[in-house]
């Protein structure tokens, strides 16, 4: 009965949404022409990176804060003292594979970071690959789960955000928050992206490794 009602409501909602989408006017010019017109001043040559780090860099700054808050929330509910030790079961094939894959993933991560300026890529993608490497190593029992974050880990996790914030504030002198001088925009964006790659990789890996109990001796 209740399921049926929810199903009918969901169907109705889907119908309304489809109706709304069918009624949309033909796409006008919108923002893409504006982005293209300003590409020369953005410091990078890939439009997505230009929007994410320059035109709407402030959004990205706050989005990194969202990720940080998510990790903080996770840490806040974590039981304070958990004994985390390498477990017993070892899969030799998996371990060998993970050992081979890890360096490749680091190379891919760094490549994605560098490529972001001119083609699809960037800090978020690079960090996701690096974090996946850490998760893989963890699942192969090469890397133990993390308990409470130590000083080096806290520094790594917040470092990228603080660099981003520091650049944003330093640019206040030249006009507005996050207003890059066109001549140095490329370099500053690379600096921010490099910091973010490290921090986001640790952060995304942390979302998995702080929760994991694998490798805990019971």
């Amino acid at each position, binding site marked *: 009965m209740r399921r049926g009602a929810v199903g009918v409501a969901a169907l109705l909602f889907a119908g309304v949404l489809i109706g709304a989408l069918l009624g949309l006017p033909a796409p006008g*010019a919108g923002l893409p022409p504006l982005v293209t017109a300003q590409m020369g001043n953005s410091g990078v040559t890939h439009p997505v990176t230009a929007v994410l780090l320059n035109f*709407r860099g402030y959004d990205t700054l*706050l989005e990194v804060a969202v990720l940080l808050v998510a990790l903080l929330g996770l840490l806040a509910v974590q039981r304070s003292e958990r004994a985390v030790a390498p477990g017993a079961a070892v899969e030799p094939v998996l371990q060998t594979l993970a050992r081979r894959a890890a360096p490749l993933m680091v190379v891919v991560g760094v490549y994605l970071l560098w490529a972001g300026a001119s083609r699809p890529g960037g800090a978020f993608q690079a960090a996701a690959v690096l974090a996946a490497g850490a998760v893989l190593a963890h699942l192969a029992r090469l890397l133990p789960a993390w308990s409470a974050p130590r000083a080096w880990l806290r520094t790594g996790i917040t470092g990228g*955000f*603080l660099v981003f914030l520091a650049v944003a504030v330093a640019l206040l002198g030249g006009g507005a928050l996050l207003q890059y001088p066109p001549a140095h925009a490329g370099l500053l964006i690379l600096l921010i992206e490099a910091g973010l790659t490290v921090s986001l990789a640790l952060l995304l890996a942390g979302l998995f490794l702080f929760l994991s109990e694998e490798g805990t001796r019971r």
Partner: protein
Amino acid sequence: MTDPLPWLVVLPLAWASVAFLLGPGRGAVLAAFGVALQCALAFELAARVQAAGALRYAVGGWGSPLGIDWYVDGLAVLMLGLTQVVALPLLLYARSYFGHAGAAGRYFWPLAGFLIGGMNALFVSADLFNLYVTLEIVGLAAVGLVAAGGGAAQLAAALRYLFATLLGSGAFLLGVALIYGACGTVSIELLGPLLAGEAPRAVYVAVVLMSVGLFLKTALFPFHYWLPPAHGGAAVPVSALLSALVIKASFYLLLRLWLDIFAPLVQPLAWLPAVLGSAAILWGSWQAVRAEHLKLLVAWSTVAQIGYLFLAFPLLATQAAALDAVVFQTVSHALAKAAMFAATGVVIHVTGNDTVAGVAGVAQRLPLTLFAFALAGVTLMGLPPSGGFLAKWLLIDAALAEGAWPLVLVVLLGGLLAAWYVFRVLRQAFLLAPPTEVAVRAPRLMEWSALLLAAASVALGVRGIELARLIAPVGAS
């Protein structure tokens, strides 16, 4: 002096990250200095807005529609000021509170910093997508604070809150996407003229989705189901921050949208929030009257007081006093509810009992704290000369001018019910205490910050004219 505006957003984010760097449980002093500085910045900004009118700031120097704009008018600066002014005593209170609460306070300081930074960013943003991001920061930080260091019941409340807040921001985001699809921009300034004319169907769907999402986040009846367990179960400083400020942030956004770009579309629907608000006042107050636990009583009172914020919606288009009423209710409730939770925390700390029955004897043991609770109660009941009285007076005045007498009835009935649940606690407090065991001393800092907030909520009624002048440009436009 440099422009205070960017610092109001950057500063809390910075001290929050540094507090996390310092380690679990650290950063209290840093936070207090940070918020004190933010208070000064907010007042400086208020002076500038009053002198030169609303400010526009292009983040990144691009300007809308390519970049993101900030827009600060009287209403925004008022919310900025309110947030910093309420947060400062609450953080001092929290320092004392978490001094003896152990695990719950491990990540309080960084989360509180991101919460305040997110709210400040929300108040100044003039870009729908950016507003969504700020909603996410505020929502996730609030959920983290509720969940911190709690048992199973508290985690369940936090999870329910998480689902509610994610559903709310999800609906908001879907609305933003539809508006971008229909209009090709997310800048509020540019959307104004676009939505004033013939709007496509998608925009109507978007307006409904975004409004419902914000109702859910503001806990307007019947979307209030998540609030009592979350606000009643969290650590006391967290309950105070959430009840006083966090729900006001999503309410502010709703008010801003309904007054500005949604105004031509929602005019026929303006009675709906008032009906829901009336139900919230009656149901919330009744539940507060019946509540057994002290913090639940205060949390249900929040559900009721939110109702008053929505009562004025049908009057906003024609009565200038209606907006003043909303603003006074927002400010006085924030101060009074922060004070009431703070006082409740002291009582629970000293008596070790969180039921209404356990308040017996508090009049002798904690006269200062009980005075703070009573003063906050005066504002919630709407007795003169408090800020709550001014808010309700303006509301009744505007409703009578419009001939909307049912609203007047609801306001009067709500005041009576509020008196009932406040006097329930006060009466119990004056009963003779059972023979006391070992007496726990009340931390001075906690008692005085509660009293300060309560006194401010009452004094607001006397010095209300300054606030009214600050928002005058908004009312005129």
